[in-house]
């Protein structure tokens, strides 16, 4: 059951200052309304994973590990590999986080990242079939939040695609009795697109990019849009109890598309 | 400009009036426009626009007489269910008139869980639970009778203008009737047939609350019922 969350209120003078600064186009940390915090991507940080990436977005830190195993295909998609995205809000990332099964926020995060990857067709699922209808590669994308300072979606989405881009795919050989045997060889995981999620938050009718945690706690709503390399929208999610006008949504979409391109230009040059 | 005539049915969000009007009960104003907050009947009182709701919960008001049911006992008083989003607090000193001594007194012996009280709201501002008193004439513990529930928004109709309706009900049935503003009605009567008649009349008011001429209909209904 979903319930109105209890949000720790910001110190009054801080939120007052935040809102005052916003009207003059500035933010508490000195950024402009449509600036990202500093983005860093470290690839291949976990050797035992088939792929991995550690992304920092300001103080937000997200680690994504990709494990690739074998399994049965989905019954309705017998000739495709499978993808599973999961997010863990581990307690070390913030005092808000409690150990336990995933709550609605981590489920929502995982599903937004999942939709971006799946709907963009980023992974060539048809090439992940080992024995048609019986055995396929299953790609597990596990999102680990290490430090939460807002905008987990963008950090997770960037980390997920980075990890997939450096993932290696184990090669299987089907023997005479029709059984699959793992070889020592690896191929790169076949990737066809580079989906980038961009999140905007609405604070007092101002739209800001890449909200910090303080900003998220003050914002009435957020809007995340994920774009393919061709600038098409492949996933959208509005969250929070605020609302957007039609015009705001259309404008947000233009900003987000531009920002997704900017990220690709800076970090995924081969995907422009 | 009025968008509706008096007592037309309106739904939440419907534009009721535009321009120089005052937003009354169950309406809200934005950009000089007045909208309904509830499903109900719109009405106008000079410049005031308001909506008489058809449905809704009882919200305590200071001075209201309510009928409550003891739902919990704590160290220094009782928690009373008054059919509202907020439980009322009844303190020990209000009931016993003296300081409570945990050694000598047992609160559950004075008022047990499930017991019914007639009380009056003494304080409430939504930031704290309402407080209740059961001291005063007509208030106190209820040991007998029948409780009937009525939609709280319809209580004013049961009472009638200056008590006209409830007085007819009492007179014609010979029952003692206590109306809680929270939609709980206590009926006390020796004759079970007359009690039943009172219950039926209250149900009739529930169904026809918003129709005028109700007083006369209830009167003839009760007289016919008595004649049987």
């Amino acid at each position, binding site marked *: 059951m979903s319930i109105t969350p*209890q949000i720790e209120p910001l110190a009054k003078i801080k939120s007052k200052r935040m809102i005052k600064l916003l009207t003059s186009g500035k933010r508490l940390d000195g950024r402009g309304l449509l600036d990202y915090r500093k983005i860093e991507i470290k690839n291949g940080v976990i050797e035992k994973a088939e792929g991995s990436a550690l992304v920092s977005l300001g103080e937000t830190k997200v680690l994504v590990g990709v494990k690739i195993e074998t399994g049965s295909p989905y019954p309705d998609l017998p000739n495709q590999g499978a993808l599973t995205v999961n997010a863990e809000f581990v307690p070390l990332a913030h005092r808000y986080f409690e150990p336990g099964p995933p709550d609605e926020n981590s489920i929502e995060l995982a599903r937004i990242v999942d939709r971006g990857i799946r709907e963009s067709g980023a992974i060539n699922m048809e090439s992940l079939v080992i024995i048609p209808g019986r055995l396929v590669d299953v790609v597990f994308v596990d999102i680990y939040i290490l430090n939460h300072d807002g905008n987990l979606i963008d950090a997770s989405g960037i980390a997920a695609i980075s990890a997939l881009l450096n993932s290696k795919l184990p090669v299987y050989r089907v023997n005479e009795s029709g059984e699959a045997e793992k070889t020592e060889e690896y191929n790169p995981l076949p990737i066809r697109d580079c989906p980038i999620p961009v999140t905007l938050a609405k604070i007092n009718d101002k739209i800001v990019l890449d909200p910090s945690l303080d900003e998220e706690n003050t914002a009435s709503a957020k809007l995340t849009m994920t774009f393919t390399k061709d600038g098409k929208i492949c996933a959208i999610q509005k969250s929070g109890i605020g609302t957007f006008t039609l015009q705001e949504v259309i404008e947000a979409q233009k900003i987000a598309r531009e920002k997704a391109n900017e990220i690709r230009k800076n970090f995924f040059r081969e995907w422009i | 400009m009025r968008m509706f005539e008096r007592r037309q049915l309106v739904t939440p969000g419907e534009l009721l009036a535009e321009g120089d009007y005052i937003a009354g009960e169950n309406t809200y104003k934005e950009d000089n426009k007045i909208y309904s907050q509830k499903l109900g009947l719109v009405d106008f009182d000079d410049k005031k626009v308001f909506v008489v709701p058809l449905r809704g919960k009882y919200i305590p008001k200071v001075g209201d007489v309510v009928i409550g049911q003891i739902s919990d006992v704590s160290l220094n008083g009782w928690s009373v269910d008054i059919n509202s989003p907020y439980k009322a607090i009844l303190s020990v000193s209000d009931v016993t008139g003296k300081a409570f001594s945990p050694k000598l007194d047992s609160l559950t012996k004075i008022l047990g869980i499930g017991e019914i009280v007639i009380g009056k709201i003494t304080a409430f501002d939504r930031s704290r639970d309402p407080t209740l008193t059961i001291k005063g004439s007509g208030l106190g513990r209820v040991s007998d009778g029948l409780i009937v529930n009525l939609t709280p928004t319809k209580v004013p109709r049961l009472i009638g203008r200056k008590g006209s309706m409830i007085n007819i009900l009492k007179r014609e049935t010979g029952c003692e009737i206590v109306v809680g503003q929270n939609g709980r009605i206590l009926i006390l009567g020796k004759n079970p047939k007359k009690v039943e008649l009172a219950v039926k009349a209250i149900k009739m008011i529930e169904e026809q609350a918003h129709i005028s001429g109700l007083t006369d209909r209830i009167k003839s209904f009760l007289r016919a019922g008595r004649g049987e």
Partner: protein
Amino acid sequence: MVTVQKLINEEGLRVDGRRLDELRPIRMEVGLLANADGSAYIEHGKNKIIVAVYGPKEAQPKHVSLHDRAVVRCRYHMAPFSTDERKSPAPSRREIEISKVVREALEPVIFTEYFPRSMIDIFIEVLQSDGGSRCAAITASSLALADAGIPLRDLVVGCAVGKVEGKLVLDPSDIEDKLGEADMPIAFIPVLGKISLLQMDGMFTEEEFIKALNMAKEACMKIYALQKQTLKEKYLQVEKEVRESLTLKE
């Protein structure tokens, strides 16, 4: 053997005979559950959804309450028999996410500030599912809230737009959602002109996105008229008698 099913025929009609911009049949009802403070039922296409609202009531457990407003709880749940194959009654990840976004779609219209420390429960049971069940659930939930007499800024309306064989289609059904290229559910608050739910998965160009938004909004206005009619029909007799007696008196 895979048979490729065409979802739009030569005449531009869809599998169920609708035009691209046509809604499925919609039927609604309010006040059908005696125990709930408010209730509503909707049939939208093959969707059959029942909603109950309880509250405002005492917040339980107490520690979840907020000092300045009512908290809203929402549960979107699918009956095991609501789908082609039996669905486990345990809430799936999809249902957990939908419970959240539906709550967030409804909360903006509720005057929660009138009832600090209290709780409003919205229980949605999908008895039979079809495409656009979260949208139909939102449409019905706002009716149930109104039926409970909870003060609202407006009703909330849900509708989706999909993409099938390269064309935008209004209010996609189950099969169009499954085989189509995109699905974008929205919830719209007509009086405020605001969007309170917006999700999408699939593939839209900018042009398609803007067109789809407007299509969904227009359809929401049509459903909004039906919502108001449903609420009024229930009490039409009351209004008629009241107004008759009023003219007699004056």
